[in-house]
Protein backbone atom coordinates (compact mmCIF):
# COMPACT_ATOMS: atom_id res chain seq x y z
CA UNK A 1 0.00 0.00 0.00
CA UNK A 2 2.65 2.45 1.09
CA UNK A 3 4.70 1.96 -2.02
CA UNK A 4 1.70 2.87 -4.18
CA UNK A 5 1.47 6.37 -2.79
CA UNK A 6 2.88 9.07 -5.05
CA UNK A 7 5.54 10.18 -2.64
CA UNK A 8 6.84 6.97 -1.18
CA UNK A 9 7.38 6.06 2.41
CA UNK A 10 6.84 7.72 5.76
CA UNK A 11 10.51 8.61 5.94
CA UNK A 12 10.21 10.38 2.61
CA UNK A 13 7.28 12.42 4.03
CA UNK A 14 9.46 13.49 6.93
CA UNK A 15 12.26 14.51 4.59
CA UNK A 16 10.01 16.43 2.21
CA UNK A 17 8.11 18.36 4.80
CA UNK A 18 10.89 19.00 7.27
CA UNK A 19 13.33 20.31 4.68
CA UNK A 20 12.27 23.97 5.15
CA UNK A 21 12.39 23.54 8.92
CA UNK A 22 15.82 21.98 9.07
CA UNK A 23 17.53 23.83 6.20
CA UNK A 24 17.65 27.59 5.92
CA UNK A 25 18.54 29.35 2.69
CA UNK A 26 19.35 32.98 1.96
CA UNK A 27 15.88 33.36 0.49
CA UNK A 28 14.36 32.92 3.93
CA UNK A 29 16.46 35.76 5.37
CA UNK A 30 15.66 37.98 2.39
CA UNK A 31 11.91 37.47 2.83
CA UNK A 32 12.10 38.03 6.58
CA UNK A 33 14.13 41.20 6.09
CA UNK A 34 11.68 42.54 3.53
CA UNK A 35 8.56 41.78 5.56
CA UNK A 36 10.27 42.87 8.76
CA UNK A 37 11.08 46.29 7.37
CA UNK A 38 7.44 46.84 6.39
CA UNK A 39 6.38 45.82 9.90
CA UNK A 40 8.95 48.21 11.40
CA UNK A 41 7.59 51.02 9.25
CA UNK A 42 4.12 50.19 10.55
CA UNK A 43 5.45 50.24 14.11
CA UNK A 44 6.82 53.72 13.44
CA UNK A 45 3.37 54.76 12.18
CA UNK A 46 1.79 53.43 15.38
CA UNK A 47 4.34 55.32 17.47
CA UNK A 48 3.55 58.49 15.53
CA UNK A 49 -0.16 57.84 16.09
CA UNK A 50 0.27 57.35 19.84
CA UNK A 51 2.44 60.40 20.27
CA UNK A 52 0.21 62.70 18.21
CA UNK A 53 -3.41 61.58 18.43
CA UNK A 54 -6.07 59.78 16.45
CA UNK A 55 -6.25 62.89 14.27
CA UNK A 56 -3.36 61.53 12.18
CA UNK A 57 -5.97 59.13 10.78
CA UNK A 58 -8.41 60.37 8.17
CA UNK A 59 -11.27 60.02 10.63
CA UNK A 60 -13.72 62.81 11.36
CA UNK A 61 -17.23 63.43 12.52
CA UNK A 62 -19.28 61.42 11.42
CA UNK A 63 -16.85 58.75 10.15
CA UNK A 64 -15.53 57.67 13.54
CA UNK A 65 -14.61 54.17 12.40
CA UNK A 66 -12.72 53.40 9.24
CA UNK A 67 -9.61 51.60 8.06
CA UNK A 68 -8.59 50.12 11.42
CA UNK A 69 -12.05 48.59 11.91
CA UNK A 70 -12.19 47.56 8.24
CA UNK A 71 -8.91 45.72 8.75
CA UNK A 72 -10.20 44.19 11.96
CA UNK A 73 -13.32 42.82 10.28
CA UNK A 74 -11.34 41.69 7.26
CA UNK A 75 -8.70 39.83 9.26
CA UNK A 76 -11.23 38.25 11.59
CA UNK A 77 -13.01 37.14 8.45
CA UNK A 78 -9.82 35.66 7.01
CA UNK A 79 -9.24 33.83 10.26
CA UNK A 80 -12.52 32.07 9.85
CA UNK A 81 -11.94 29.41 7.35
CA UNK A 82 -8.69 28.02 8.65
CA UNK A 83 -9.96 26.44 11.81
CA UNK A 84 -13.47 26.02 10.46
CA UNK A 85 -12.45 24.15 7.30
CA UNK A 86 -10.01 22.02 9.19
CA UNK A 87 -12.58 21.22 11.88
CA UNK A 88 -15.43 20.51 9.48
CA UNK A 89 -13.25 18.34 7.28
CA UNK A 90 -11.86 16.47 10.28
CA UNK A 91 -15.33 15.90 11.68
CA UNK A 92 -16.57 14.61 8.34
CA UNK A 93 -13.40 12.54 7.79
CA UNK A 94 -12.79 14.16 4.41
CA UNK A 95 -9.65 12.47 3.19
CA UNK A 96 -8.43 15.29 0.98
CA UNK A 97 -8.06 17.56 3.99
CA UNK A 98 -4.86 15.89 5.21
CA UNK A 99 -2.22 18.13 3.60
CA UNK A 100 -4.13 21.40 4.17
CA UNK A 101 -5.27 21.27 7.80
CA UNK A 102 -2.02 22.50 9.37
CA UNK A 103 -1.57 25.40 6.96
CA UNK A 104 -5.19 26.45 7.40
CA UNK A 105 -5.05 26.30 11.21
CA UNK A 106 -1.85 28.36 11.29
CA UNK A 107 -3.51 30.91 9.01
CA UNK A 108 -6.34 31.27 11.53
CA UNK A 109 -4.01 31.85 14.46
CA UNK A 110 -1.95 34.52 12.71
CA UNK A 111 -4.85 36.37 11.11
CA UNK A 112 -6.66 36.52 14.44
CA UNK A 113 -3.50 37.83 16.12
CA UNK A 114 -3.22 40.59 13.53
CA UNK A 115 -6.96 41.27 13.77
CA UNK A 116 -6.80 41.60 17.56
CA UNK A 117 -4.19 44.36 17.25
CA UNK A 118 -6.53 46.65 15.33
CA UNK A 119 -9.12 47.46 17.98
CA UNK A 120 -6.23 48.40 20.28
CA UNK A 121 -4.59 50.68 17.71
CA UNK A 122 -8.01 52.16 17.01
CA UNK A 123 -8.64 53.19 20.63
CA UNK A 124 -8.22 56.80 21.62
CA UNK A 125 -6.40 55.74 24.78
CA UNK A 126 -5.03 52.24 24.14
CA UNK A 127 -3.06 52.32 27.39
CA UNK A 128 -6.31 51.88 29.34
CA UNK A 129 -7.64 49.05 27.16
CA UNK A 130 -7.70 46.88 30.27
CA UNK A 131 -10.90 48.66 31.34
CA UNK A 132 -12.55 46.20 28.94
CA UNK A 133 -11.33 43.20 30.90
CA UNK A 134 -13.68 41.99 33.60
CA UNK A 135 -11.54 41.87 36.71
CA UNK A 136 -12.64 42.41 40.30
CA UNK A 137 -11.34 45.58 41.94
CA UNK A 138 -12.02 47.58 45.05
CA UNK A 139 -13.86 50.30 43.13
CA UNK A 140 -16.48 47.78 42.07
CA UNK A 141 -16.17 48.73 38.41
CA UNK A 142 -17.02 46.21 35.71
CA UNK A 143 -17.15 46.46 31.96
CA UNK A 144 -20.55 46.89 30.38
CA UNK A 145 -21.65 43.41 29.39
CA UNK A 146 -24.44 44.89 27.29
CA UNK A 147 -21.89 46.32 24.88
CA UNK A 148 -21.16 44.26 21.76
CA UNK A 149 -17.52 45.32 22.13
CA UNK A 150 -17.29 43.28 25.32
CA UNK A 151 -18.86 40.32 23.55
CA UNK A 152 -16.28 40.89 20.86
CA UNK A 153 -13.42 41.04 23.33
CA UNK A 154 -14.51 37.77 24.92
CA UNK A 155 -15.23 36.08 21.58
CA UNK A 156 -11.90 37.03 20.03
CA UNK A 157 -9.87 35.96 23.05
CA UNK A 158 -11.76 32.65 23.22
CA UNK A 159 -11.28 32.05 19.53
CA UNK A 160 -7.59 32.92 19.65
CA UNK A 161 -7.01 30.61 22.60
CA UNK A 162 -9.06 27.82 21.03
CA UNK A 163 -7.35 28.17 17.67
CA UNK A 164 -3.89 28.07 19.21
CA UNK A 165 -4.80 24.88 21.08
CA UNK A 166 -6.35 23.46 17.94
CA UNK A 167 -3.20 24.25 15.99
CA UNK A 168 -0.89 22.95 18.69
CA UNK A 169 -2.52 19.65 19.62
CA UNK A 170 -2.24 17.91 16.24
CA UNK A 171 1.29 19.28 15.90
CA UNK A 172 2.68 17.41 18.91
CA UNK A 173 3.56 14.14 17.07
CA UNK A 174 5.28 16.11 14.32
CA UNK A 175 7.21 18.13 16.91
CA UNK A 176 8.46 14.87 18.38
CA UNK A 177 9.82 13.95 14.95
CA UNK A 178 11.69 17.25 14.70
CA UNK A 179 12.93 16.84 18.25
CA UNK A 180 14.64 13.63 17.25
CA UNK A 181 16.20 15.27 14.19
CA UNK A 182 17.43 18.64 15.45
CA UNK A 183 20.46 19.79 17.41
CA UNK A 184 21.54 22.63 19.65
CA UNK A 185 19.09 25.10 21.15
CA UNK A 186 16.37 24.08 18.75
CA UNK A 187 16.46 20.61 20.21
CA UNK A 188 15.58 22.04 23.63
CA UNK A 189 12.76 24.04 22.07
CA UNK A 190 11.21 20.93 20.56
CA UNK A 191 11.83 18.89 23.71
CA UNK A 192 9.72 21.44 25.56
CA UNK A 193 7.08 21.74 22.84
CA UNK A 194 6.60 18.04 22.12
CA UNK A 195 5.64 17.44 25.76
CA UNK A 196 7.51 14.15 25.91
CA UNK A 197 5.54 12.55 23.11
CA UNK A 198 6.71 8.98 22.48
CA UNK A 199 4.12 7.79 20.01
CA UNK A 200 2.59 5.03 22.13
CA UNK A 201 -0.81 3.62 21.29
CA UNK A 202 -2.25 5.31 24.36
CA UNK A 203 -0.99 8.72 23.31
CA UNK A 204 -2.36 8.30 19.79
CA UNK A 205 -5.81 7.29 20.95
CA UNK A 206 -5.85 10.15 23.44
CA UNK A 207 -4.83 12.64 20.77
CA UNK A 208 -7.48 11.43 18.40
CA UNK A 209 -10.14 11.72 21.10
CA UNK A 210 -9.07 15.24 22.11
CA UNK A 211 -8.95 16.32 18.48
CA UNK A 212 -12.43 14.95 17.99
CA UNK A 213 -13.71 17.08 20.86
CA UNK A 214 -11.78 20.21 19.84
CA UNK A 215 -12.95 19.97 16.23
CA UNK A 216 -16.58 19.88 17.32
CA UNK A 217 -16.20 22.61 19.94
CA UNK A 218 -14.30 25.04 17.73
CA UNK A 219 -17.01 25.12 15.03
CA UNK A 220 -19.65 26.99 17.08
CA UNK A 221 -16.93 29.23 18.49
CA UNK A 222 -15.86 30.16 14.96
CA UNK A 223 -19.44 30.87 13.90
CA UNK A 224 -20.10 32.93 17.02
CA UNK A 225 -17.00 35.06 16.54
CA UNK A 226 -18.00 36.52 13.23
CA UNK A 227 -21.63 36.79 14.28
CA UNK A 228 -20.46 38.92 17.17
CA UNK A 229 -18.24 41.00 14.91
CA UNK A 230 -21.31 41.65 12.78
CA UNK A 231 -23.29 42.58 15.89
CA UNK A 232 -20.80 45.37 16.57
CA UNK A 233 -22.61 46.92 13.64
CA UNK A 234 -26.04 45.34 13.69
CA UNK A 235 -26.73 46.23 17.33
CA UNK A 236 -26.48 49.94 16.56
CA UNK A 237 -29.29 52.02 15.10
CA UNK A 238 -27.10 53.24 12.24
CA UNK A 239 -29.11 52.98 9.01
CA UNK A 240 -28.20 49.86 6.97
CA UNK A 241 -26.05 48.44 9.78
CA UNK A 242 -29.13 47.73 11.83
CA UNK A 243 -30.01 44.56 9.97
CA UNK A 244 -31.03 41.10 11.10
CA UNK A 245 -29.21 39.46 8.21
CA UNK A 246 -25.82 40.81 9.25
CA UNK A 247 -24.70 37.89 11.42
CA UNK A 248 -25.11 35.12 8.79
CA UNK A 249 -24.01 37.53 6.07
CA UNK A 250 -20.76 38.24 7.91
CA UNK A 251 -20.18 34.56 8.67
CA UNK A 252 -20.66 33.68 5.01
CA UNK A 253 -18.36 36.48 3.89
CA UNK A 254 -15.79 35.40 6.46
CA UNK A 255 -15.79 31.78 5.31
CA UNK A 256 -15.63 32.99 1.72
CA UNK A 257 -12.58 35.22 2.20
CA UNK A 258 -10.98 32.62 4.47
CA UNK A 259 -11.25 29.88 1.87
CA UNK A 260 -9.73 32.23 -0.68
CA UNK A 261 -6.78 32.86 1.63
CA UNK A 262 -6.36 29.13 2.28
CA UNK A 263 -6.10 28.64 -1.49
CA UNK A 264 -3.59 31.50 -1.84
CA UNK A 265 -1.44 30.10 0.94
CA UNK A 266 -1.62 26.55 -0.39
CA UNK A 267 -0.49 27.68 -3.84
CA UNK A 268 2.41 29.62 -2.34
CA UNK A 269 3.47 26.79 -0.01
CA UNK A 270 3.29 24.30 -2.84
CA UNK A 271 5.51 26.50 -4.97
CA UNK A 272 8.01 27.63 -2.33
CA UNK A 273 8.52 24.28 -0.61
CA UNK A 274 8.13 22.02 -3.67
CA UNK A 275 5.17 20.18 -2.20
CA UNK A 276 3.55 19.40 -5.56
CA UNK A 277 3.09 15.77 -4.66
CA UNK A 278 1.21 16.65 -1.47
CA UNK A 279 -0.92 19.58 -2.58
CA UNK A 280 -2.38 18.02 -5.67
CA UNK A 281 -4.98 19.30 -8.14
CA UNK A 282 -7.45 17.28 -6.13
CA UNK A 283 -7.10 19.62 -3.14
CA UNK A 284 -7.48 22.71 -5.30
CA UNK A 285 -10.44 21.17 -7.11
CA UNK A 286 -12.29 20.67 -3.82
CA UNK A 287 -11.33 24.09 -2.44
CA UNK A 288 -12.47 25.61 -5.75
CA UNK A 289 -15.87 23.97 -5.39
CA UNK A 290 -16.15 25.48 -1.92
CA UNK A 291 -15.19 28.87 -3.32
CA UNK A 292 -17.87 28.57 -5.99
CA UNK A 293 -20.56 27.70 -3.47
CA UNK A 294 -19.51 30.48 -1.12
CA UNK A 295 -19.53 33.09 -3.89
CA UNK A 296 -23.14 32.22 -4.70
CA UNK A 297 -24.23 32.17 -1.05
CA UNK A 298 -22.41 35.43 -0.39
CA UNK A 299 -24.18 37.13 -3.26
CA UNK A 300 -27.52 35.74 -2.13
CA UNK A 301 -27.09 37.29 1.31
CA UNK A 302 -25.84 40.58 -0.07
CA UNK A 303 -28.72 40.75 -2.54
CA UNK A 304 -31.37 39.90 0.05
CA UNK A 305 -30.09 42.73 2.25
CA UNK A 306 -29.71 45.30 -0.52
CA UNK A 307 -33.03 44.52 -2.18
CA UNK A 308 -35.07 45.12 0.97
CA UNK A 309 -33.31 48.44 1.48
CA UNK A 310 -33.79 49.44 -2.14
CA UNK A 311 -37.43 48.46 -2.27
CA UNK A 312 -38.34 49.93 1.12
CA UNK A 313 -36.95 53.40 0.27
CA UNK A 314 -36.72 54.28 3.94
CA UNK A 315 -35.00 57.67 3.45
CA UNK A 316 -32.06 57.32 5.83
CA UNK A 317 -31.31 53.76 4.65
CA UNK A 318 -31.83 54.52 1.00
CA UNK A 319 -29.43 57.46 1.24
CA UNK A 320 -26.69 55.06 2.34
CA UNK A 321 -27.41 52.49 -0.37
CA UNK A 322 -27.49 55.15 -3.06
CA UNK A 323 -24.24 56.61 -1.80
CA UNK A 324 -22.71 53.11 -1.92
CA UNK A 325 -23.87 52.09 -5.36
CA UNK A 326 -24.16 55.36 -7.28
CA UNK A 327 -21.97 57.75 -5.31
CA UNK A 328 -18.19 58.02 -5.09
CA UNK A 329 -18.03 54.43 -3.86
CA UNK A 330 -19.39 53.07 -7.16
CA UNK A 331 -15.96 51.91 -8.45
CA UNK A 332 -15.42 50.02 -5.22
CA UNK A 333 -18.90 48.58 -5.46
CA UNK A 334 -18.30 47.22 -8.95
CA UNK A 335 -14.91 45.88 -7.87
CA UNK A 336 -16.74 43.97 -5.18
CA UNK A 337 -19.36 42.56 -7.54
CA UNK A 338 -16.82 41.57 -10.19
CA UNK A 339 -14.28 40.06 -7.79
CA UNK A 340 -16.75 38.39 -5.46
CA UNK A 341 -19.35 37.15 -7.86
CA UNK A 342 -18.56 37.40 -11.57
CA UNK A 343 -14.99 36.09 -11.63
CA UNK A 344 -15.25 33.25 -9.11
CA UNK A 345 -18.63 32.19 -10.48
CA UNK A 346 -17.47 31.91 -14.08
CA UNK A 347 -14.10 30.33 -13.31
CA UNK A 348 -14.78 27.98 -10.40
CA UNK A 349 -17.59 26.46 -12.43
CA UNK A 350 -15.07 24.59 -14.60
CA UNK A 351 -13.04 21.65 -13.43
CA UNK A 352 -10.06 22.44 -15.68
CA UNK A 353 -9.76 25.91 -14.14
CA UNK A 354 -10.18 24.61 -10.58
CA UNK A 355 -7.31 22.21 -11.20
CA UNK A 356 -5.12 24.96 -12.62
CA UNK A 357 -3.00 26.23 -9.76
CA UNK A 358 -2.24 29.59 -11.37
CA UNK A 359 -5.92 30.29 -11.98
CA UNK A 360 -6.64 29.37 -8.38
CA UNK A 361 -3.98 31.81 -7.15
CA UNK A 362 -5.34 34.71 -9.20
CA UNK A 363 -8.99 34.03 -8.38
CA UNK A 364 -8.33 33.58 -4.67
CA UNK A 365 -6.43 36.87 -4.53
CA UNK A 366 -9.21 38.66 -6.43
CA UNK A 367 -11.84 37.28 -4.06
CA UNK A 368 -10.00 38.88 -1.16
CA UNK A 369 -9.72 42.16 -3.06
CA UNK A 370 -13.49 41.95 -3.42
CA UNK A 371 -14.00 41.06 0.22
CA UNK A 372 -11.81 43.95 1.34
CA UNK A 373 -13.92 46.28 -0.81
CA UNK A 374 -17.01 44.78 0.77
CA UNK A 375 -15.70 45.58 4.28
CA UNK A 376 -15.03 49.17 3.23
CA UNK A 377 -18.50 49.45 1.70
CA UNK A 378 -20.16 48.12 4.84
CA UNK A 379 -18.43 50.55 7.18
CA UNK A 380 -17.66 53.88 5.52
CA UNK A 381 -20.81 54.78 3.52
CA UNK A 382 -23.15 53.99 6.42
CA UNK A 383 -21.24 56.36 8.70
CA UNK A 384 -20.86 59.03 6.00
CA UNK A 385 -24.61 59.30 5.49
CA UNK A 386 -26.07 59.51 8.98
CA UNK A 387 -29.57 60.47 9.97
CA UNK A 388 -28.92 64.21 10.15
CA UNK A 389 -27.93 65.57 6.71
CA UNK A 390 -26.16 68.44 8.49
CA UNK A 391 -23.66 65.87 9.76
CA UNK A 392 -22.85 64.13 6.51
CA UNK A 393 -19.20 63.60 5.70
CA UNK A 394 -16.70 61.46 3.86
CA UNK A 395 -13.42 59.73 4.50
CA UNK A 396 -9.96 59.51 2.97
CA UNK A 397 -7.26 57.35 4.56
CA UNK A 398 -3.93 58.96 5.47
CA UNK A 399 -0.41 57.57 5.11
CA UNK A 400 -0.53 56.49 8.75
CA UNK A 401 -3.53 54.23 8.24
CA UNK A 402 -2.16 52.88 4.97
CA UNK A 403 1.22 52.15 6.58
CA UNK A 404 -0.39 50.30 9.48
CA UNK A 405 -2.54 48.34 7.02
CA UNK A 406 0.51 47.41 4.93
CA UNK A 407 2.32 46.40 8.11
CA UNK A 408 -0.62 44.17 9.04
CA UNK A 409 -0.43 42.25 5.77
CA UNK A 410 3.36 42.07 6.05
CA UNK A 411 3.10 41.09 9.71
CA UNK A 412 0.74 38.25 8.92
CA UNK A 413 3.07 37.04 6.17
CA UNK A 414 6.07 37.36 8.46
CA UNK A 415 4.42 35.33 11.20
CA UNK A 416 3.53 32.70 8.64
CA UNK A 417 7.04 32.58 7.20
CA UNK A 418 8.51 32.22 10.69
CA UNK A 419 5.98 29.51 11.42
CA UNK A 420 7.13 27.51 8.40
CA UNK A 421 10.70 27.86 9.67
CA UNK A 422 9.93 26.32 13.03
CA UNK A 423 7.03 23.98 12.36
CA UNK A 424 6.06 21.56 9.60
CA UNK A 425 3.52 23.36 7.43
CA UNK A 426 1.89 20.10 6.40
CA UNK A 427 0.65 17.73 9.06
CA UNK A 428 3.05 14.84 8.56
CA UNK A 429 1.29 12.27 10.66
CA UNK A 430 -2.06 12.95 9.05
CA UNK A 431 -0.52 12.46 5.61
CA UNK A 432 1.16 9.26 6.76
CA UNK A 433 -2.08 8.09 8.28
CA UNK A 434 -3.76 8.72 4.96
CA UNK A 435 -1.10 6.63 3.25
CA UNK A 436 -1.90 3.75 5.56
CA UNK A 437 1.66 3.78 6.79
CA UNK A 438 2.37 1.95 9.97
CA UNK A 439 5.39 2.10 12.19
CA UNK A 440 7.50 -0.95 11.67
CA UNK A 441 7.54 -3.26 14.64
CA UNK A 442 10.38 -2.47 17.00
CA UNK A 443 11.24 0.85 15.34
CA UNK A 444 10.52 3.80 17.57
CA UNK A 445 8.84 6.31 15.26
CA UNK A 446 6.86 8.85 17.29
CA UNK A 447 5.42 10.57 14.23
CA UNK A 448 3.56 7.73 12.56
CA UNK A 449 0.14 6.86 13.91
CA UNK A 450 -0.95 3.24 14.27
CA UNK A 451 -3.30 2.18 11.53
CA UNK A 452 -6.37 1.64 13.65
CA UNK A 453 -6.78 5.15 15.10
CA UNK A 454 -8.90 6.49 12.28
CA UNK A 455 -11.28 4.43 10.25
CA UNK A 456 -11.31 4.90 6.51
CA UNK A 457 -7.79 6.22 6.60
CA UNK A 458 -6.51 4.13 3.78
CA UNK A 459 -6.52 4.99 0.17
CA UNK A 460 -6.27 8.74 0.45
CA UNK A 461 -3.83 8.91 -2.38
CA UNK A 462 -4.64 5.63 -4.04
Amino acid at each position, binding site marked *: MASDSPFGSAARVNDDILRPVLQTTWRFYAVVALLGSVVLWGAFAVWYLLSTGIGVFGLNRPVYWALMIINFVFFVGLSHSGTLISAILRVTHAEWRRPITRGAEAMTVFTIMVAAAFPLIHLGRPWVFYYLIPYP*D*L*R*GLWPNFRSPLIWDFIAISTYLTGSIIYLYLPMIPDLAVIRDRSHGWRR*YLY*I*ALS*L*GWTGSEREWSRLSRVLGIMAVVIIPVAVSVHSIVSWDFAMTIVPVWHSTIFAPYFVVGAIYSGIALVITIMVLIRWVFNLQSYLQPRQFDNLGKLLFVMSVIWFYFWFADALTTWYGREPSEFAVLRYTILGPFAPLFWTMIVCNLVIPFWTMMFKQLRRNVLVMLVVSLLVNVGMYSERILIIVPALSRGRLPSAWGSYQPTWVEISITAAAFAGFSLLYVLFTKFFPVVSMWEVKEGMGERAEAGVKEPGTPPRKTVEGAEGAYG
Partner: protein
Amino acid sequence: MRLGLVVAPVFFLIVAAAGAFLLTTTGQAPPTQPIAFSHLVHANEKQIACTYCHQGVAKSAVAGIPSVEKCMGCHRTVAVDSPEVRKVAAYWERKEPIAWARLAYLPDHVYFSHQPHIQAGKECQTCHGSPSLPNGSFGRLQPGMDWCLSCHRRDGASIDCSTCHK
Protein backbone atom coordinates in the same frame (compact mmCIF):
# COMPACT_ATOMS: atom_id res chain seq x y z
CA MET B 1 11.25 19.67 29.61
CA ARG B 2 12.60 19.61 33.19
CA LEU B 3 14.54 22.77 32.38
CA GLY B 4 11.25 24.49 31.51
CA LEU B 5 9.73 23.46 34.80
CA VAL B 6 12.58 25.19 36.63
CA VAL B 7 12.81 28.27 34.44
CA ALA B 8 9.13 29.20 34.50
CA PRO B 9 8.75 29.65 38.29
CA VAL B 10 12.09 31.44 38.51
CA PHE B 11 11.04 33.84 35.78
CA PHE B 12 7.72 34.38 37.50
CA LEU B 13 9.44 35.12 40.81
CA ILE B 14 11.79 37.62 39.21
CA VAL B 15 8.87 39.50 37.61
CA ALA B 16 6.89 39.48 40.84
CA ALA B 17 9.89 40.72 42.85
CA ALA B 18 10.55 43.51 40.35
CA GLY B 19 6.88 44.54 40.52
CA ALA B 20 6.85 44.57 44.30
CA PHE B 21 10.07 46.60 44.35
CA LEU B 22 8.63 49.18 41.97
CA LEU B 23 5.38 49.43 43.93
CA THR B 24 7.13 50.06 47.24
CA THR B 25 9.72 52.53 46.01
CA THR B 26 7.80 54.82 43.69
CA GLY B 27 6.29 56.94 46.50
CA GLN B 28 7.23 60.59 46.06
CA ALA B 29 9.73 62.20 48.36
CA PRO B 30 8.19 65.02 50.43
CA PRO B 31 8.77 68.42 48.84
CA THR B 32 10.94 70.93 50.65
CA GLN B 33 8.86 73.69 52.16
CA PRO B 34 10.17 77.27 52.20
CA ILE B 35 9.70 77.25 55.97
CA ALA B 36 9.95 74.25 58.29
CA PHE B 37 6.37 74.60 59.48
CA SER B 38 5.21 71.90 61.90
CA HIS B 39 1.59 70.80 62.10
CA LEU B 40 2.67 68.71 65.07
CA VAL B 41 3.51 71.82 67.07
CA HIS B 42 0.54 73.92 65.98
CA ALA B 43 -2.28 71.37 65.85
CA ASN B 44 -1.16 68.67 68.27
CA GLU B 45 0.81 70.47 70.99
CA LYS B 46 -0.81 73.89 70.92
CA GLN B 47 -4.25 72.51 70.03
CA ILE B 48 -5.06 75.19 67.47
CA ALA B 49 -8.19 74.25 65.50
CA CYS B 50 -7.61 73.40 61.82
CA THR B 51 -10.29 75.90 60.79
CA TYR B 52 -8.40 78.72 62.52
CA CYS B 53 -5.96 78.73 59.59
CA HIS B 54 -7.85 76.80 56.87
CA GLN B 55 -10.90 78.99 56.98
CA GLY B 56 -12.56 78.08 53.70
CA VAL B 57 -13.13 74.49 54.60
CA ALA B 58 -16.71 74.75 55.86
CA LYS B 59 -18.06 76.99 53.14
CA SER B 60 -16.20 76.36 49.93
CA ALA B 61 -14.52 73.77 47.77
CA VAL B 62 -11.01 74.54 48.97
CA ALA B 63 -9.84 74.78 52.55
CA GLY B 64 -7.29 77.48 51.74
CA ILE B 65 -3.77 78.26 52.87
CA PRO B 66 -3.49 81.01 55.52
CA SER B 67 -2.04 84.34 54.49
CA VAL B 68 1.26 85.62 55.89
CA GLU B 69 -0.83 88.11 57.81
CA LYS B 70 -2.53 85.23 59.58
CA CYS B 71 0.85 83.80 60.61
CA MET B 72 2.03 87.18 61.81
CA GLY B 73 -1.16 87.62 63.84
CA CYS B 74 0.41 85.32 66.41
CA HIS B 75 4.07 85.41 65.51
CA ARG B 76 4.39 89.13 66.10
CA THR B 77 4.51 88.11 69.74
CA VAL B 78 4.93 84.34 69.85
CA ALA B 79 8.31 82.66 69.34
CA VAL B 80 9.72 85.71 67.56
CA ASP B 81 13.27 84.54 68.08
CA SER B 82 12.86 81.21 66.33
CA PRO B 83 14.89 81.20 63.09
CA GLU B 84 11.94 79.79 61.10
CA VAL B 85 9.55 82.43 62.45
CA ARG B 86 12.10 85.06 61.45
CA LYS B 87 11.82 83.79 57.93
CA VAL B 88 8.05 84.35 58.12
CA ALA B 89 8.66 87.85 59.39
CA ALA B 90 11.01 88.45 56.48
CA TYR B 91 8.25 87.52 54.04
CA TRP B 92 5.97 89.91 55.92
CA GLU B 93 8.53 92.70 55.63
CA ARG B 94 8.94 92.09 51.89
CA LYS B 95 5.13 91.93 51.50
CA GLU B 96 5.59 88.64 49.71
CA PRO B 97 3.38 85.52 49.95
CA ILE B 98 4.97 82.27 51.07
CA ALA B 99 5.18 79.75 48.23
CA TRP B 100 4.13 76.63 50.17
CA ALA B 101 4.58 73.37 48.33
CA ARG B 102 1.27 71.63 47.87
CA LEU B 103 0.83 68.20 49.47
CA ALA B 104 -2.79 67.23 48.85
CA TYR B 105 -3.44 66.69 45.18
CA LEU B 106 -6.41 65.37 43.26
CA PRO B 107 -6.26 64.52 39.56
CA ASP B 108 -7.79 67.01 37.15
CA HIS B 109 -10.74 64.72 36.44
CA VAL B 110 -11.86 64.69 40.07
CA TYR B 111 -14.29 67.23 41.47
CA PHE B 112 -14.00 67.66 45.19
CA SER B 113 -15.50 70.18 47.54
CA HIS B 114 -14.62 70.33 51.25
CA GLN B 115 -17.90 71.97 52.18
CA PRO B 116 -20.30 68.98 51.90
CA HIS B 117 -17.82 66.76 53.70
CA ILE B 118 -17.53 69.17 56.64
CA GLN B 119 -21.32 69.65 56.58
CA ALA B 120 -21.65 65.87 56.92
CA GLY B 121 -19.46 66.06 60.03
CA LYS B 122 -16.27 64.53 58.68
CA GLU B 123 -13.03 65.15 60.56
CA CYS B 124 -10.05 66.58 58.69
CA GLN B 125 -7.93 63.68 59.94
CA THR B 126 -10.15 61.14 58.16
CA CYS B 127 -8.60 62.05 54.84
CA HIS B 128 -5.45 63.97 55.73
CA GLY B 129 -4.10 61.75 58.47
CA SER B 130 -3.00 62.73 61.96
CA PRO B 131 -0.92 65.91 62.41
CA SER B 132 1.49 63.77 64.41
CA LEU B 133 2.59 62.15 61.17
CA PRO B 134 6.09 63.16 60.07
CA ASN B 135 6.32 66.36 58.08
CA GLY B 136 5.60 65.76 54.43
CA SER B 137 3.28 62.83 55.07
CA PHE B 138 0.63 64.71 56.96
CA GLY B 139 -1.88 66.35 54.64
CA ARG B 140 -1.26 63.91 51.84
CA LEU B 141 -4.23 61.97 50.58
CA GLN B 142 -4.64 58.25 50.29
CA PRO B 143 -4.43 57.54 46.58
CA GLY B 144 -7.20 55.80 44.75
CA MET B 145 -10.88 55.97 44.12
CA ASP B 146 -11.54 52.81 46.15
CA TRP B 147 -10.55 54.75 49.25
CA CYS B 148 -13.10 57.54 48.55
CA LEU B 149 -15.73 54.92 47.78
CA SER B 150 -15.16 53.03 51.02
CA CYS B 151 -16.69 55.97 52.99
CA HIS B 152 -19.24 56.91 50.33
CA ARG B 153 -20.58 53.34 50.34
CA ARG B 154 -20.54 53.01 54.14
CA ASP B 155 -22.27 56.36 54.76
CA GLY B 156 -24.76 56.07 51.91
CA ALA B 157 -23.32 59.09 50.10
CA SER B 158 -23.70 59.31 46.33
CA ILE B 159 -21.56 56.90 44.32
CA ASP B 160 -22.84 58.26 41.01
CA CYS B 161 -19.82 58.85 38.72
CA SER B 162 -20.84 62.44 38.04
CA THR B 163 -20.75 63.33 41.74
CA CYS B 164 -16.96 63.28 41.76
CA HIS B 165 -15.84 63.09 38.14
CA LYS B 166 -15.84 66.18 36.00
